[in-house]
């Protein structure tokens, strides 16, 4: 019997560790275009202590460890590029605490977006969290680790800005806490202790987040989506800027796509609006549609498309239907909103070059401080040629992001390489030192943020 397998089984149990090929196969790929890589073991721990033991074992044996949440990044971030132990964290799914008055929740790392949403709707209907457009199985921690954004990004920013505290198992096996919880206090703030900031954006290459305190936000009784459309992409930045000035929206997204035809070569806005009363709702609608965007309607440059109650999550995944075989992946970027027109035009050019119907989306983050702009490419999972085409389009788009002066969001291996090539040398050196100190044997999610 394999001694590593036996050691892992001793830490968890035989039901939650596997080295059977059919199970390893499932963990060898994600839903994007990344090449598959098989782990040697899959283990599903249920406590922080078990994770510590597994990491210590990996250190002793010099085996890579790759943490996996919902596996929804699409960028291959949890594909075990160098094999080793894949840590499937989904069993660690306890919502440990909801502090209603201080508006935060303490969660284990396997808690999914859908789980927290339904829990809050049932027990705390006046609280919500900033839910990304990802499927409900995506985890809260996974989204925070990649600096995700959700449907409250406009007033509150990145989800990683809403972290109140972390518990992390370091690559050498120690468990550390950050934020007020590090003093044994409640998990209510990540400030004002010295900033350590070593774990977000690293894709698990510096440690495994096991617990997280995330801010909860007021949930208004009525939440809905208003829609607006313009046919000139040059108008998008100024409209976003004006909308954020009203401070009346919860989420502002602009999008355009070749399919369905109604969206083609037009820029649609979805503007989420929330209110506790009909009076508040009408006041906000009046300010947004009549006072702020009325000038575009009057001139015939923009059109109001109505308001529907209840939220609809962005459905970029529908683009996977554009080609048979249901695959899609996107390049996300963090961009100044003024770049929207150029992002849109260049995105269409790239899509046309690879014969893929174009789909672009820009979500406003903060008061127009930036946007997450994404270019999505569909492919047929059963057709290597379309996969290669999509991969080439993705790589070209990674390069475009940097040419346009943006930052690639959750870059895969190719994008990370591009970023590291252009990164300020002193910053790169610091990152290398940090990684070396925290992970001296280089076992944590190797292939990600590796600095030669």
């Amino acid at each position, binding site marked *: 019997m394999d001694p590593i397998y036996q050691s892992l089984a001793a830490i968890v149990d035989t039901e939650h560790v596997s080295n059977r090929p059919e199970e390893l196969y499932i963990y060898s790929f994600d839903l994007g275009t990344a090449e598959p890589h098989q782990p040697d073991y899959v283990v599903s721990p249920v406590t922080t202590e078990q994770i510590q033991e597994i990491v210590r074992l990996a250190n002793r044996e010099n085996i890579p460890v790759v943490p996996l949440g919902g596996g929804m990044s699409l960028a291959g971030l949890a594909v075990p590029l160098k094999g080793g132990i894949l840590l499937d964290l989904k069993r660690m799914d306890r919502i440990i605490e909801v502090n209603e008055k201080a508006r935060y929740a303490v969660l284990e790392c396997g808690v999914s977006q859908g789980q927290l949403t339904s829990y809050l709707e049932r027990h705390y209907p006046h609280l919500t969290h900033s839910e990304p457009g990802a499927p409900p199985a995506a985890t809260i921690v996974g989204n925070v680790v990649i600096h995700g954004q959700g449907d409250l990004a406009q007033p509150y920013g990145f989800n990683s800005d809403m972290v109140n505290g972390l518990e992390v198992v370091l690559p050498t096996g120690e468990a550390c806490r950050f934020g007020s919880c590090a003093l044994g206090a409640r998990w209510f703030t990540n400030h004002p202790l010295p900033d350590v900031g070593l774990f977000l954006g690293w894709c698990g290459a510096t440690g495994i987040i096991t617990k997280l305190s995330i801010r909860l936000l007021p949930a208004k009784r009525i939440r809905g989506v208003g829609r607006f459309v313009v046919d000139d992409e040059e108008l998008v930045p100024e409209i976003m800027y004006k909308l954020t000035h009203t401070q009346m929206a919860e989420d502002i997204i602009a999008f355009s796509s070749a399919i*369905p035809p109604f969206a083609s070569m037009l820029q649609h806005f979805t503007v989420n609006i929330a209110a506790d009363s009909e009076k508040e709702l009408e006041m906000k609608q009046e300010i947004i*549609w009549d006072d702020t965007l009325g000038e575009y*309607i009057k001139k*015939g440059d*923009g*059109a109001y498309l*109505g308001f529907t109650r209840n939220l609809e999550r962005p459905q970029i995944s529908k683009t996977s239907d554009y080609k048979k075989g249901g695959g899609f992946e996107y390049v996300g970027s963090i961009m100044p909103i003024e770049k929207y027109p150029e992002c849109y035009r260049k995105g269409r050019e790239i899509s046309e070059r690879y014969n893929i119907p174009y789909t672009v989306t820009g979500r406003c983050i903060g008061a127009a401080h930036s946007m997450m702009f994404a270019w999505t490419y569909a492919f047929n999972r059963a057709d290597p040629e379309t996969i290669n085409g999509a991969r080439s389009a993705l790589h070209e788009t990674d390069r475009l992001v940097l040419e346009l002066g943006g930052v690639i969001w959750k870059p895969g291996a190719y994008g990370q390489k591009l970023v590291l090539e252009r990164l300020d040398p002193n910053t790169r050196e610091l990152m290398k030192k940090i990684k070396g100190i925290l992970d001296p044997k280089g076992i944590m999610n190797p292939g990600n943020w590796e600095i030669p």
Partner: protein
Amino acid sequence: MYDLIFDPDLCLHCRTQACLTKCQYIDIDGEAAQKEILKIARGEDSFVLHECATCYACEEYCTFGNHPFYLIAEKQEVLGISPVPRPLIRRAVNIGIPFRGQPEIKEINGPVLNIGAFSELKHLIQGKLFEGITPISTDERKMFHYFCQLMYLHYGRASVIKERLPGIIETIAKHKPMELICFHDECYGAYTSYCEAHGIDVPFKPIHFYEYLYNRLVELKGMIRPVSLKVAYQRPCSSRLSPDKHLFVGRIFDLIGAESVKREFVDENALCCAGAIEGQKLEGSRKRAAKQQQRNVEDMKNAGAQVCVFNCPACFQTLGEMVARNGIKPVHMSDLCRLAIGETPAGWR
């Protein structure tokens, strides 16, 4: 291109000018109305072209069948006076473009029910009422091959209708329908009123959905148990293109034991759902639409309606949630009829 058959002499000799004097959105007397409609017929600008709510009602008000609304829509396009902003027109024109391959054509040689561009609503044509009827356009991916295009009247784009409608008719005709039951008033209006007004040939016999429902209910009379509900009917704008079929609403209600509540905005005086108004360019359109919807729903409520009956999916989408919020259950006419013969529509409580 097909030309609208419009006779200005009929307007000259009209004593009422009801097309405009009865309009619920424009305040005008008979004398001014005659001047304005003749100006429009001559291709001159008129405030009517700018303020038209595109509710289609003047098609019904005109007792001569002279098609004042088709005229207004045509002249809006010719004079570049679009009722809605440019991006909304582009969006709407794009909507009707089929993009998922060609439809599967099967020759039916019998009665056919055309769901048009509402394939996702095929659950509304199930049960005994529709036994023996072959539906077409049930595939959401192909439904725009069956889209009657009349929607473009709301956008001042009659040219799109004229360009595309003959092709749609050709596609339907390939199924060899003996009769074409039109799920939506708008399709029926397209293949009867609009085609007739423009000399477009229609090689099949269109049947109004309500006429079909009524006749089928008569066949199933033994199964009918009175629904005993107080109902308000949301009359769609497209029903103005076939006012002779509107009487089937009352006949169906009588047959199934639904009590049509006494209300102000009913029959000829019905208010449209205002879905087309809220997107218009005219300043204040969003608020005007909201106020009209409120008046409409208040009227239903005050009359004691328990149920609001829809035919038009767009009206349902625009008003359904609002009537529900006001304690009135929104229901499609076919579901109400199914209820009367002992079937339970999905979601009915």
